[in-house]
């Protein structure tokens, strides 16, 4: 049984992505008998390229992926270089997983409430600095170049890249490298950049690629913050797929293939940038400069990440404020009165989406955790080195969701698989599985093997040792991985919306659906619920092991 686990995991990840891509590729060239496309043709492509504003859509998708990833990576790297061992470092480390847990849509809404012409920022400086007595008529969110979209993406990508870096760092023994560099006269930040970063980057390359792929094809954030005329490519694809005119389905398939191309092009472009950076910094690494720019780098490194974290927290606070606001005239910083009306009115509507969210999240995460544990235990028993298959885990994160999910629906329909809830859970599993694996694997492998040897030399069988020794010792990382999985599932918009055929409502689909309306109070309620659910998961994950271990000091860490 156990030996099947890795095959099962890879099958679960590769088959859906592969078949989904195939079923998008065929209709892109006119072939889909179910919709009356019996021959191959280039008509979908001709129709696609005749769409107004397509070039702009593609450009915004391409640029937002690259720019946001580059900014987020720079913020994280400079922070790590400049803040080691400071109070800032310690508090950010504590904050990073909760920040990561906040879904994209909630961050996007909160950020929009901050920067909108009538948002909190404008209120803070009006009318004193600006003289505005009424909201200025400016297109700040949904700006045509996607700048607010990029900023929103950076807010979400920073905690992700930071967490990935923090997980990879210990194996590089950064303290020793830094000590050596400093004993040779390098200032700390420069020393870190020259001795640790070159080894760190290869370890976080795949997460960076995943960030680029996600950002070039994101849907929920682009619906909230992105440009509208024309929208990003991914948002256009979604509306074409939902168009009642059948011929639009074929064009949408062609556009999904184009989206895949845009993402691949962005990744290739990034790869070229990597090569260029390597060549340009080769001399810098060994030119012996030890101090230059230390102060500037330190200031930027510490303030940039602090700023992005505070913005994310302020966005959450803004959601809370709007959800409670009664009458609130423009330049006033706070509402004239607070009310629970919006919460009370939303209460009954929240029930079904909450149940669906919990059901989908718990089942998909439980399945993912069981599969990951089985794979890791098998790897341990068979002494398998895990390196090669790792990039397969990233497959669902590297291929744009919108490019294969539609094909997946077509594939499921032609196989007669229809229950929307089951399909949604299976779809979530695809995205939950990699994250559960990534957050658990390292600690699982690092557990001192002598624990299990002692157990077995005391007469306990392999599987009993797994249940009675390994799981209890790993309870804290296990629960954290579970919370990560839940957070990923709760935040999923596109898979829920598409695989559920619009009939499975979760807090995320409902919150994003409110984006087209303009009831900020209602949006505040829903987005806050959406942001709160994963936080509950993390609080439990942190609290339960402490509760269990009140009498066990060495376990509580």
């Amino acid at each position: 049984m156990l030996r099947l686990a890795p095959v099962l995991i890879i099958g679960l990840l590769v088959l859906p992505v592969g078949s989904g891509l195939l079923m998008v590729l065929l209709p892109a060239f006119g072939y889909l008998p179910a919709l009356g496309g019996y021959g191959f043709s280039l008509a979908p492509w001709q129709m696609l390229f005749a769409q107004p504003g397509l070039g702009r859509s593609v450009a915004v998708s391409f640029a937002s992926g690259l720019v946001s990833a580059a900014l987020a990576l720079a913020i994280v790297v400079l922070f790590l270089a400049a803040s080691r061992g400071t109070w800032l470092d310690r508090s950010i480390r504590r904050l990073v997983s909760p920040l990561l847990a906040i879904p994209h849509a909630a961050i996007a809404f909160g950020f929009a409430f901050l920067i909108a012409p009538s948002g909190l920022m404008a209120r803070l400086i009006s009318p004193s600095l600006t003289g505005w007595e009424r909201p200025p008529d400016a297109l700040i969110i949904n700006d045509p170049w996607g700048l607010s979209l990029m900023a929103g993406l950076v807010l979400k990508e920073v905690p992700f890249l930071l967490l990935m870096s923090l997980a990879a760092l210990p194996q590089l023994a950064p303290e020793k490298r830094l000590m050596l560099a400093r004993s040779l006269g390098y200032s700390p930040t420069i020393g870190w950049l020259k001795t640790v970063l070159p080894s760190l980057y290869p370890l976080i390359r795949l997460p960076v690629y995943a960030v680029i792929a996600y950002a070039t094809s994101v849907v929920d954030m682009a619906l909230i913050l992105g440009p509208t005329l024309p929208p990003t490519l991914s948002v256009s694809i979604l509306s074409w797929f939902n168009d009642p005119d059948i011929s639009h389905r074929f064009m949408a398939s062609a556009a999904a293939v184009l989206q895949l191309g845009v993402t691949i092009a962005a990744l290739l472009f990034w790869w070229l940038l990597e090569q260029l950076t390597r060549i340009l910094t080769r001399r810098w690494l060994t030119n012996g400069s030890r101090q230059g720019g230390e102060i500037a780098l330190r200031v930027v490194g510490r303030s940039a990440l602090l700023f992005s974290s505070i913005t994310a927290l302020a966005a959450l606070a803004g959601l809370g404020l709007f959800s409670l606001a009664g009458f609130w005239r423009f330049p006033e910083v706070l509402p004239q009165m607070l009310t629970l009306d919006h919460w009370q009115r939303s209460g009954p509507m929240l029930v079904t989406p909450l149940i669906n969210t919990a059901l989908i999240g718990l089942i998909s995460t439980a399945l993912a955790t069981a599969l990951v544990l089985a794979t890791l235990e098998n790897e341990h028993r068979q002494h398998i080195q895990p390196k090669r298959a790792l990039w397969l885990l990233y497959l669902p994160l590297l291929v744009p969701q919108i490019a294969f999910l539609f094909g997946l629906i077509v594939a499921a329909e032609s196989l007669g698989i229809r229950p929307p809830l089951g399909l949604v859970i299976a779809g979530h599993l695809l995205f939950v599985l990699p994250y559960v694996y990534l957050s658990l694997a390292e600690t699982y492998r690092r557990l001192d093997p002598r624990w299990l040897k002692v157990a077995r030399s005391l007469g306990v069988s392999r599987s009993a040792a797994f249940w009675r020794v390994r799981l209890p010792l790993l309870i804290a990382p296990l629960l954290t991985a579970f919370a990560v999985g839940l957070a990923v599932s709760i935040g999923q918009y596109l898979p829920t919306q598409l695989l559920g055929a619009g009939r499975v409502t979760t807090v995320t689909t409902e919150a994003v659906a409110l984006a087209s309306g303009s009831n900020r109070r209602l949006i505040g309620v829903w987005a806050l619920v959406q942001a709160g659910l994963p936080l509950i998961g993390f609080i439990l994950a942190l609290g339960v092991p402490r509760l269990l271990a009140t009498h066990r000091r060495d376990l509580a860490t």
Partner: protein
Amino acid sequence: MTTSLCAPLSLGQTLRLEHISIALAGRELLAVDAAIAAGEVLTVMGPSGSGKSTLLAYIAGFLDREFTASGGVWLGERDLLGLPAEKRGIGLLFQDPLLFPHLSVGGNLRFGLPRSSKEKHQQVSQALEQVGLAGLESRDPATLSGGQQSRVALMRLLLSKPKAVLLDEPFSKLDTALRQEMRALVFSQLREAGLPALLVTHDHADAKAAGGPVIELG
């Protein structure tokens, strides 16, 4: 001996290591041929990297696949090599006491007891009393001193009723005074239990205290 009168003495068996040879990537690491009688301690000495711990891993059933090994491991008339680690009846004592942090002191000792044992509660409290830790059943192992933890680990090992014991530098992390005390305790308990034991160490004083034959590796 008075004990043989009142208890059906589980007569200790000899642990035989027959022409054991362990190689890594085609290069022989070590070769051992020895028999350890009940109550006797065989000491294997050698510098780090000489394969001492590898020998223990082979006997206990944890050898990594990258090694190739040949030779027999017999306990009395029983061939151990075909058995999984938990069926071999070989207890291990490491440098670190490795008390399970999720269990209490008593829980750790009960973890060692065979499932079918009678009067588990009493056996546990007796074991603790024997090493001067009476009444500490419900304590968190993390709150014990290093020496106390080592003693609990020893009793956990003995309660599991092993047929032979392997000691992997068990005293190297203790301070000098504690080291002598633990040596005396471990060796007297092993002798009393009539178990064959294999000690690997790089400390000559350990070998002397063990009092048995010595093999030098490397």
